[in-house]
C-alpha cells in the first residue's frame, strides 16, 4: 500500500477553522438565550427595583399606561387574557393534535399518511399574520352569526386560531414519539389479543408519554408566545373575560402594540420589558416542568 500523500498545511488549517465555526454555532444558542434574557432584564430592571408596584401589576386590571392624570400598570386583565386564550386553544388542540398523531401513526395506510403529514406541515407554514387575518374577517363574521353575539373578536376566535396554529406542532412531534415506540411492543400486544383501542390506551400512550408530553408543552409554548394572530383576533380589549365570547388582550399583543410608541427608558417602556420578563419566566417554567417531568418519568 502506497503511503498517503502529506496533507497540505492549508487543508488542516481550514479543517480547524470549520471545526471552530461549527462549535461556535453550537455554543451560540446558549449565548443568545443568555444575551436575550440579559437584555430584557436590563431594560426593565431599573423600574423593576424602583417604583414598580408588584401588587398593582399582578392584582389590578387597570392598564392605563398613557393616562394624563393617573398612570396605572395593572396587568391582571392581560394575564387573564393570555391564560384564557391559551387554555381554550389547548382544550381544542390537545385532543385534536394527539388524535391526529395516533391516526397518522397507527391507523392510516401509507398513502394517506404521506398526504396527511404534508398537509399538517403545510398548516404550520402559514404565517401568523395570515391566521390573524382569517380571525379578523372570516371567523369574526362566523362567530357573530352562529352565537348571535355583538362582536366576533374574542377568546373563542383567538383560541380557535391558536389551536389551529399549535396542532401541527403537536401532531408532528407526537407522531415522532409514537414512531419511536419499538414495533416489538405492538407485536407483543397484538399477539396477546388486544384490540386497537387497548393497544393505544394501554401500550402506546404509556410508552410514548414523554414525547407526547413534550409535544403538548411545545404547543402550549407556541400558544403563550404567539402575538400577531391574537392581536388581530382577540379584539384587543383590556378586560377579564367572563365568557368565551368576551374580547380580551394578551401580554404579547400589549408589547407589540405599545413598544413602538413608548419613549425609550420611560416607565411605560420598562413595564413592557417587565411583561417580557414575565412571559420569559412563564415559557421557561413550562419548559423546565416538561424537562423535569420527562426525567422523572424516565427514572421512575
Amino acid at each position, binding site marked *: 500500500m502506497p503511503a498517503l500523500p502529506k496533507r497540505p498545511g492549508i487543508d488542516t488549517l481550514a479543517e480547524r477553522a470549520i471545526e471552530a465555526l461549527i462549535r461556535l454555532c453550537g455554543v451560540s444558542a446558549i449565548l443568545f438565550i443568555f444575551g436575550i434574557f440579559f437584555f430584557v432584564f436590563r431594560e426593565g430592571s431599573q423600574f423593576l427595583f424602583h417604583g414598580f408596584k408588584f401588587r398593582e401589576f399582578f392584582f389590578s386590571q387597570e392598564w392605563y399606561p398613557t393616562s*394624563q392624570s393617573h398612570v396605572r400598570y395593572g396587568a391582571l386583565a392581560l394575564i387573564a387574557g393570555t391564560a384564557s386564550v391559551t387554555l381554550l386553544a389547548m382544550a381544542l388542540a390537545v385532543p385534536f393534535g394527539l388524535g391526529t398523531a395516533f391516526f397518522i401513526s397507527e391507523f392510516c395506510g401509507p398513502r394517506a399518511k404521506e398526504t396527511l403529514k404534508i398537509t399538517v406541515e403545510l398548516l404550520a407554514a402559514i404565517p401568523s399574520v395570515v391566521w390573524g387575518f382569517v380571525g379578523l374577517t372570516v371567523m369574526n363574521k362566523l362567530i357573530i352569526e352562529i352565537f348571535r353575539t355583538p362582536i366576533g373578536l374574542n377568546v373563542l376566535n383567538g383560541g380557535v386560531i391558536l389551536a389551529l396554529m399549535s396542532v401541527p406542532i403537536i401532531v408532528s412531534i407526537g407522531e415522532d414519539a409514537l414512531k419511536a415506540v419499538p414495533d416489538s411492543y405492538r407485536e407483543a400486544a397484538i399477539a396477546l389479543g388486544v384490540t386497537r383501542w387497548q393497544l393505544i390506551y394501554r401500550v402506546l400512550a404509556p410508552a410514548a408519554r414523554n414525547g407526547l408530553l413534550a409535544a403538548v408543552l411545545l404547543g402550549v409554548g407556541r400558544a403563550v408566545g404567539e402575538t400577531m394572530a391574537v392581536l388581530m383576533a382577540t379584539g384587543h380589549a383590556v378586560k377579564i373575560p367572563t365568557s368565551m365570547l368576551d374580547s380580551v388582550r394578551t401580554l404579547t399583543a400589549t408589547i407589540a402594540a405599545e413598544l413602538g410608541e413608548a419613549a425609550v427608558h420611560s416607565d411605560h417602556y420598562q413595564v413592557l420589558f417587565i411583561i417580557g420578563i414575565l412571559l420569559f419566566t412563564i415559557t421557561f417554567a413550562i419548559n423546565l416542568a416538561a424537562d423535569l417531568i420527562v426525567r422523572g418519568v424516565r427514572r421512575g
Partner: protein
Amino acid sequence: MTRPTARRYRLIFTIGLLALAFLAAACSRSKARTKAVIQDTGSDTMVNLAQAWAEEYANVDSTVSVEVSGGGSGTGIAALSSGTVDIANCSRRFEPGEIEQAKKNTGREPRELMVGFDALAVYVNKNNPLNEITIAQLAGIYAEGGKLTKWSQLGVKMPPGSDEIICVGRQSNSGTYFYFREAILGKERDFRLGSRDMQGSKDVVELVANTPSAIGYSGMGYNTPAVKQLRVSKAAGQPAYPPTVETTLDHTYPIARPLFMYTLGEPTGAVKKYLDWVLSDGGQKIVLTSGYVPLPKTGK
C-alpha cells in the same frame, strides 16, 4: 484530484475578494446616483394623505423621493426625537415632555407646521338608526365609569341580543386616541377599559362596518358606504353638525383638529422645499381629495 489544493484555495480567495470589491463599487456608485430621500413617518390618520403627497411630489421634483410609513403619531414622535426620520406626521401636538425629550436626544427643537384639518368622525354601522350624538353622550359611552353601556339608553332600538354598545377605539400611541380623550373626556378622565383598541384608522371603520352594535372614532377620510358618520352636537338641545369641510372651517363641528408635520429645527434643503410644496395650492388640493380639510386660504 478531488482534494482542493492550496492553489485552488488561493483562487477561491481571490475570486471572493474581487466579488467583494465589485459589490462595494456597485454600492458606492448607486449611492451617488440615487435621489435625496425624505423619511416621513407617524400618524395613521394621515398616512393615506402623506402617501398621496409623496406620490404627487414625485411628479413635481423627480430628484427627491419621499418614503412614508404609518404606525401612529406616537411612533412618529418617538422616531423624530431619536433622529431617525426627517418629518413626523402628527394628528396631535407634541407634549411639552416630548419636546424636551427630542431636544435632549438630538439637540434640536421640533418645529411644528400645520398642514390641514381633520374632523374626527364618529362612526356607527350603516343599519344603526342613530343619526346624531352629543359630546356628553360620547363621554358617557367612552369614559371610565361612564353610564352609557346600552343602545336603549340612547333611545335606539337594536335587534335583540345586540343592545350592548361595542366601543371601538385606538391603541394608546395614536394621536387620534389622545385627541379624542382630551376633547371628549378632558385631561382628567381616562377611557373605559374593555374598548376594542384597533391598530389603525381603517381597522376601526372596518370593525364598525362588520359589527352592527359598534361605535368608533376615526379620521373623516376613512368613510365608506358600510358605515355612517354621526352628526355631533356640543350639548343636548344644540344643533348637531356632520363632519364636513365647511363645518370644520367655521368651527361648528365640535371635534375637529389640526394635522401637523414636525421637523427637527427649521427645515432646510429638500425637506423645506417639500413642506413648502405641501402648503402650496398643489399640495393643499391633495388634502381635499384625500378626504380632509385644507388650510383656509386667508389663514396662510
